[in-house]
């Protein structure tokens, strides 16, 4: 099979890393893969992951058109970051294909895209969510305010999924909007992950000399939804942990955020270490040295979390927020924190893990075993191939619907062909063979 995959390819892209694993496996299975990298123009010369396949920038229109026309299927990796996905959006609109959806909120992607497509952007928001949702996308409010205003009522999932022939995503919690907007098959496939395992001990446990502090770690870009403040407050109110723990943040952080969190930690008597962005080796060491990893998210907008998968694969006891993707993790593998009782739950979870090394070890080992079985490239590629075959079967129906919708639009009907049983039912003959 000939596949063209549109993806960010830059080394720091986690999506690009997953895609590299998938691409290598597809090539190993005898498929022909071409990668079209989709970052904004200024990033197209940066170092890439190793895909085992030729890589083209999305801006080379003639070359991309030629490989796309020659391909059996086009695959688009889409996440909520315009700098990484600009080219994917451009080509998806022109040449639809299978979308691999990494976030259940695409508001930032849409807002950045609509900056240069204002009229069309307004039309899209109005059509999917109504006039009242147009304003948040036109006014550049603060990130937290923008997310709060739009995440439930206008997450822009439908905008991308309606362009897709099929959608693969990585958890079920946000799928309703996907199913309602994509006319083709929708499949939930556990993420495949690209990072090497560290040298952690079996079950990820750390032999810690007496007196050394209990190490809690948060990894990734530090922002409000990672709940760092709540962890600090929980540690600050725990006599058990207060003097015996160290909380470390590894990942990009704005100076003003670092200052504010350091001040809060000081006020609460918490030993906070802000390490900032580090390379892969240092990140792996930070994971190895930790006793517990905090993968709290609120709101949770991802279809899956690379940080959580990394924590589990490394056999680390992990706490997560009981919401979204994280809710779908077996309760034997992580400790779940209720959003409406957050600080108290974090405190009791960390205290339990601190005081009971056996429980900590058992949970970490179970999480590692489950992650090793679940987040595999072999499974991912198998499911991807199934989805491609399903998509090929449904393509004639979608083409027919597209044709009929265009004719109806030309006749000026405000009409959704996919909602009309009289039109859709006879079309099922196209999909009944095979």
């Amino acid at each position: 099979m000939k596949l063209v995959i549109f993806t960010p390819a830059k080394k720091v892209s986690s999506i690009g890393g997953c895609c590299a694993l998938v691409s290598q496996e597809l090539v190993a299975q005898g498929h022909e893969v071409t990668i079209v990298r989709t970052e904004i123009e200024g990033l197209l010369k940066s170092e890439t992951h190793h895909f085992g396949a030729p890589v083209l920038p999305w801006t080379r229109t003639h070359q991309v058109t030629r490989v796309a026309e020659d391909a059996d299927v086009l695959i688009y990796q889409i996440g909520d970051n315009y700098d990484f996905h600009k080219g994917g959006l451009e080509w998806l609109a022109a040449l639809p294909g299978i979308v691999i959806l990494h976030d259940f909120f695409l508001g930032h992607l849409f807002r950045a895209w609509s900056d240069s497509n204002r009229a069309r952007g307004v039309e899209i928001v109005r059509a999917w969510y109504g006039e009242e949702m147009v304003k948040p996308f036109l006014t550049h409010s603060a990130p937290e305010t923008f997310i709060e205003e739009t995440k439930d009522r206008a997450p822009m999932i439908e905008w991308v999924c309606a362009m897709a022939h099929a959608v693969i995503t990585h958890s079920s919690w946000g799928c309703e909007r996907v199913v309602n907007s994509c006319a083709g098959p929708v499949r939930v496939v556990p993420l495949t992950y690209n990072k090497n395992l560290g040298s952690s001990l079996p079950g990820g446990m750390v032999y810690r000399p007496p007196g050394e502090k209990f190490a809690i770690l948060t990894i990734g870009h530090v922002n409000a939804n990672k709940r760092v403040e709540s962890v600090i407050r929980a540690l600050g109110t725990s006599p058990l942990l207060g003097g015996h723990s160290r909380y470390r943040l590894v990942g990009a952080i704005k100076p003003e955020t670092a200052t504010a969190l350091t001040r809060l930690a000081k006020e609460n008597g918490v030993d906070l270490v802000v390490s900032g962005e580090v390379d892969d080796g240092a990140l792996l060491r930070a994971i190895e040295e930790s006793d517990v990893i905090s993968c709290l998210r609120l709101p949770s907008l991802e279809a899956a979390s690379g940080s959580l998968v990394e924590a589990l694969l490394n056999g680390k006891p992990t706490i997560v927020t009981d919401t979204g993707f994280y809710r779908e993790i077996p309760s034997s593998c992580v400790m779940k924190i209720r959003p409406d009782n957050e600080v108290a739950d974090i405190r009791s979870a960390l205290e339990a893990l601190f005081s009971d090394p056996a429980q900590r070890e058992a949970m970490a080992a179970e999480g590692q075993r489950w992650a090793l079985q679940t987040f595999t490239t072999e499974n991912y590629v198998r499911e991807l191939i199934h989805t491609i075959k399903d998509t090929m079967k449904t393509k004639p129906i979608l083409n027919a619907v597209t044709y009929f919708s265009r004719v109806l639009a030309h006749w000026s009907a405000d009409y959704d062909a996919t909602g009309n049983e009289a039109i859709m039912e006879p079309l099922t003959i196209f999909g009944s063979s095979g």
Partner: protein
Amino acid sequence: MKILIVHTMTPFQRTETDELAARLEKALIIAGHESEALRIPFQWEPADRITSQMLMVRAFELWNVDHVIAMGFPAFLIRHPKKTLWVLGYEHGHDLIDGNGVVNRPPDGEASELRMLIRNAENESFRESRRILVGAETTRQYLLEHNQVDAKVLVPPAGGADSRGDWSPIIEVLLR
């Protein structure tokens, strides 16, 4: 010339249009053309099936045909670069949609959407046709009022006549 006559039909019902199409087919053959009739099943009821029947006609692809003579809605939505419309008894179906009859009136909002859709489809078909002919002055007036189309009246020969003499001027106009 290979001439296809396209018209709508209801199974096991024989209408005046069916009779006229059969006579025209014969007359075209007598005049030295190759001719066949394509009868497309269509009915006005229920109203929510009208759109899908229109789309079906629009989706047909015709090959090996030099000229199409389309009679009646929605047959004249069929696509062909050389298409002549000969509209007979046209207002009847439209009246049903308008509810002036009233056997097939959908709910108010839908009726107006459906009317608009039919009218836009008709107008598109009128624009892409070489000639628009009607069977009676009343039909001409109707199209003028509702579609702003000034058609020419071409009255079919009286029933039973299939001689070359009766049909020659009609065929000449239809294929002009």
